[in-house]
């Protein structure tokens, strides 16, 4: 084909030109004026999302001044200053899915020995069979099957199922007086994640992304990991990490538990890296020509850049989650390769690699859906909690040690919490279990800005209800935001005519656990 040969050199010249692989400020077309961008941004928050990426590349430094680079209107993921200085800048939330039994873990109740076998109504007449979920399986009060021993200098009494985590008792701040509004998994999960027991509200991670922005330009700023052992997802699934009415840029990215963790990262099988690069160069060359005739359209430049970011993500994301790059002793520390906890060890190690690379918020769900597939120990509380503690104890302990050793623990807030607690009575059956308890749960914080070795609030003598210094989920959330330097009353988003907040109209910061 003679025509082909004649044309090919034009292609060769073009492909060899450095201008085809980079947009440089000099050769770039007239970029929109600062004012133009600001004004246009007012018309639609999302449209200039990627201008921030151009900023990252230094491409807009000439037109957008520093004072505006942090503008959320220009870039929803731009790093934001907190409302006040705070130590923690990142979060890893170990989500204890299904609802852990506080009296069998961290909330030591010696009085249960005394009350063992007695009716809970003798203790608290307000108890109804419908307080839990299974009204016809109500047993007597039941002592914990686990031994408690004092741990750390603070001497916190901790159940024997947490030998590793217990090592860090002096870094933890316990809340024993948490309570929630629902005794059913999905509304309670929604409430723990979004503040309300209903669908359609943004989760804590999304609020934090909105409040602080993302420090990573080639990784998703908010990552969620769920059970990789085929035991399902937390009830209510993706709504637990959704952005609801906040812009979609703030929603959690679910790292898929099986197969490639992020969708569409792998290029088509028959293509080499070089070939995909050529394809991207072709797209870029044609797009730039199109943009040249429409220089005022910032979105077009942003979209051109989005291909470059996508290209980088294809390398950066697999690298971030590739724990095989970690040395042997780190694998051993977390328990990678141990049958009991391999999966969770990998997830905790991944979480550390993510926060190291600037990921803002990581949530790892321990357990799949309900019953014996998660901490939802309706049957055999001893077996259930031994198993799930076994899956998580060493990895979480290792995560805290590892972060501390790298100097990252001060900046990283670790949260251990699930959607509710469990009743101190037995749920009758072949092996006794425990039923849902919305009236009381225990959670702990560790790391950034947390006063270690402290305990806040008390449940009643048997752990049935939160009694002293009660902490509602809204208070819990207010405290998380506070530890990140965000005032829960000022972090608002106007939606549907209302200044929406994570904490609704409530919320109280628990200053006692703040260092």
């Amino acid at each position: 084909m003679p025509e082909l040969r004649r044309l090919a050199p034009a292609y060769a010249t073009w492909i060899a030109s450095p201008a085809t692989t980079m947009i440089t400020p000099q050769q770039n077309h007239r970029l929109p004026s600062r004012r133009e961008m600001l004004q246009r941004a007012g018309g639609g928050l999302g449209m200039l999302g990627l201008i921030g990426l151009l900023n990252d590349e230094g491409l807009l430094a000439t037109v957008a001044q520093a004072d505006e680079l942090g503008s959320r209107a220009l870039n929803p993921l731009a790093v934001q200053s907190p409302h006040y200085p705070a130590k923690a800048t990142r979060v890893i939330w170990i989500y204890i899915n299904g609802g852990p039994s506080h009296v069998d873990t961290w909330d030591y109740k010696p009085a249960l020995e005394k009350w063992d076998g007695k009716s809970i109504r003798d203790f608290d007449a307000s108890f109804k069979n419908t307080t839990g979920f299974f009204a016809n399986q109500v047993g007597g009060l039941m002592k914990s099957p686990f031994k408690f021993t004092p741990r750390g200098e603070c001497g916190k009494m901790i159940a024997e199922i947490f030998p590793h985590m217990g090592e860090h008792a002096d870094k933890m701040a316990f809340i024993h007086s948490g309570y929630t509004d629902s005794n059913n998994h999905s509304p309670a999960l929604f409430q723990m994640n979004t503040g309300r027991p209903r669908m359609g509200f943004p989760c804590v991670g999304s609020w934090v992304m909105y409040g602080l922005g993302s420090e990573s330009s080639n990784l998703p700023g908010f990552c969620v990991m769920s059970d990789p052992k085929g035991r399902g997802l937390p009830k209510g699934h993706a709504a637990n990490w959704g952005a609801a009415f906040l812009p979609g840029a703030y929603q959690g990215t679910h790292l898929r538990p099986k197969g490639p963790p992020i969708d569409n990262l792998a290029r088509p099988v028959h293509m080499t890296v070089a070939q995909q690069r050529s394809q991207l160069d072709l797209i870029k060359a044609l797009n730039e020509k199109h943009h040249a005739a429409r220089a005022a359209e910032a979105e077009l430049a942003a979209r051109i850049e989005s291909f470059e970011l996508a290209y980088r993500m294809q390398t950066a994301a697999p690298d971030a989650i590739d724990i095989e790059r970690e040395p042997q002793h780190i694998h051993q520390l977390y328990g990678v390769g141990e049958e009991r906890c391999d999966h969770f060890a990998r997830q905790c190690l991944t979480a550390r690699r993510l926060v190291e690379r600037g990921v803002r918020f990581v949530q790892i769900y321990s357990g799949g859906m309900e019953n014996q597939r998660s901490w939802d120990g309706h049957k055999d509380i001893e077996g259930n909690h031994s198993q799930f503690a076994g899956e998580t104890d060493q990895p979480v302990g290792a995560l805290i040690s590892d972060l501390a050793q790298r100097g990252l623990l001060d900046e990283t807030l670790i949260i251990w919490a699930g959607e509710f607690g469990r009743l101190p009575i037995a749920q009758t059956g072949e092996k006794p279990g425990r039923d849902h308890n919305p009236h009381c749960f225990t959670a702990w914080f560790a790391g950034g800005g947390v006063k270690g070795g402290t305990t806040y609030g008390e449940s009643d003598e048997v752990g049935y209800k939160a009694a002293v210094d009660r902490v509602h989920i809204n208070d819990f959330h207010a405290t998380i935001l506070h530890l990140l330097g965000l005032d829960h009353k000022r972090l608002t988003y106007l939606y549907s005519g209302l200044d929406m907040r994570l904490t609704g109209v409530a919320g109280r910061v628990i200053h006692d656990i703040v260092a």
Partner: protein
Amino acid sequence: MFGRLPTIGAILVLLASTGLADEVFKPTKPTPEQAKFFENEVRPLLAKHCYECHGEDEQEGELRLDSLAAILNGGTVGPAVVPKKPDASLLIKAVTFQDPNMEMPPDRKMSAREIDVLRRWVQMGAPWPGVDKVTISRKAKATGITDEDREFWSFQPLKPSKSDDASIDAFIAKQLEARGLAFSPPAARRELIRRAYFDLTGLPPSPEAVDAFVNDDSPQAWEHLIDRLLASPQYGERWGRHWLDIVRFAQTNGYERDDEKPEAWRYRDYVIEAFNSDKPYNQFLMEQLAGDELDEVTAESIIATGYYRLGVWDDEPDDARQAEFDDLADVVATTGEALLGITINCGRCHEHKFDPISQEDYYRLLAFFRNIRRYEKPNKKPGSATFTDIGGEHFVQQWQESREAKIAQLQQQVAVRPHLKEAIDARISQLQSHSPPSGWALSITERGPKPVATNVLIRGNAGTPGDEVQPAFLPVLTTESPKLPEQAADGKSTGRRRVLAEWIAAADNPLTARVFVNRLWHYHFGRGIVASPSDFGHTGSRPSHPELLDWLAADFIAGGWKLKRMHKLIMMSRAYRQSSRATNVKAAEADPDNALVWRQNMRRLEAEAIRDSILAVSGKLNPAMGGRGIFPALSPEVLSTQSRPGAGWDKSSPEERSRRSVYIFVKRTLTVPMMDTFDQPTPDTPDPARKTTTIAPQALILLNSAFMNEQASAFAERLLNEAGNEPAAQIERAYRLAVSRKPTSRELAIAIGYLQQQQQRWQELAENAEADQAQRHALQALCKAILNLNEFVYVD
């Protein structure tokens, strides 16, 4: 005690206490300790100091302090207690003598210990043991609407210009001229036809259609093009989808099980057909709000009431009563925003912060819906709350008559306007393919002809009802009172929703027509005359061209609330036909946001239009309409994101999967990643103006996804079939299909070079590879690159 004139301080406290309230206050059951504390400490103290003036016998300042509901409701200056917030509570303010105008008890200050008891009690969240038997007397206030409130622009009646010279262009030009600006030149014909196709059908024009239009010298070329597109069945699919955004259409309930709402698809098909048949908008509204209460109830009008059933539904709520009000609140909020363009849901818990809508107004509006039976688990039997049998003989007969009338009308149209033959034939054959109504429709039913009472709920809490209210329209919009029937004609419902529907759909409702024509403008220009299409209140934007808005609204009403003529009116204007290029430097500086419409806006296609266009260009698009929905293939990884992996996601055949995106089954907990990533809104809340984000995962989808690999391969096959083996011909065909033009010589050179180089590489990679296979890979890679062009996903 709070009966005196409120001081500035008290007003501030009142605002603080209601300001951010977006949440239902739910009194928690007191713990035994709290109950003890209350009975031993708090109640005796209240009885001793307060009940004389604020108890059962006397209510100074309309306040009583002997029930929690009454305390939360407060007196004339506001709630006496804000639970957990002693500093924001008037009660604490009064007993601490902070304000000389409000010192209680008036004779002597309580002891520090007593004050501390009250403070601790408020801090605890005001626990109140026992049943709150007192029905509190929240005196329904006079409407409290002032003339000033009514003067707000959107609450005023339409004031359309009577000038003979009034036109879209005249209004736009007037403002441009006032600033020394002018219209941009008209867009090129190729750009215009793409703009028209995407705006009206959401699909790209075929190369043949482009040629025909570009070469049509007749002065009616543009007009005829618009007519053809409006007559095509794809119009309803495009514009129906816009409506589905506004009413947050979904086909499942959400929450844990996220079960299907059977028959919800009928509502989607109803909407598409309503747009295609140019159903008058006022009738469209009436059918959705009160299709079961109209003089003539049809299968269609019953399906329309599926409107009420689209929201999330909690199948095992903790508090069934509260859940019922959650559902009703969802209906009130959606109706307010979608039809009236006002955000009203604030009124659920407190007075509207910005607009003159009181909490009573909210519950008076809710009262129209109060008798609705709550959605229940699917039960297709007579007496079902959620389903209605639409297979009856009279329904079938009505349907036949209506279809024949539609077809006859279309045939008449063809006779007069032969240029529409093709489009109308397609529409007629579509109508002929419809089957008569049968089975069950997702629909509304009421509890019966006798209305359930509606009470104001203090702080939005179903457990603390206040005074009963009667249905009433929003007083800021009208002084008219609803004339409530004894019951609906068929005796099955109260007939109240029809009364509300008639008020909303009336020509003199100041909002309805304005809001709707603004939506049309929004979708035609990428920005409304009012930039906040579902908020015409104080927090919303003001109209950029108020006279134009009123003129359009009045014209819309005068034209019988018909949409198609409005589309045409807008699209025939010079304003619409302008180029989108920002070549006018002066205008770009003066009005970078283009609020004055000195150019058309360049716009990115929405998720559906991107996917549909890819299918259209690859040649795989299956135009079949209607039905339950399609299930695009999802990877096991995506399916695993559900708590019951894969549950409720069926398999569709490849042909079915290639249908238009409006037919993708809308499952709340499993949105299709491609749609989601390109900003399709969550179906849980209405979205009147989609966001356009540009994020890397979009690029990853268009480069690497299985869907794109399939489509690029189909596109390449198509090129081989239609353009043969010659690269230049293939590339030309590809450009004409994807971006409606020929490539420039430079583009052609680059693309040919790319093909050649890639073919070589593939041959090198696999030593024995067939030249054929390498050529195909190269062509597929080029096809995918073309589907990734900005020119493909942006419309000039």
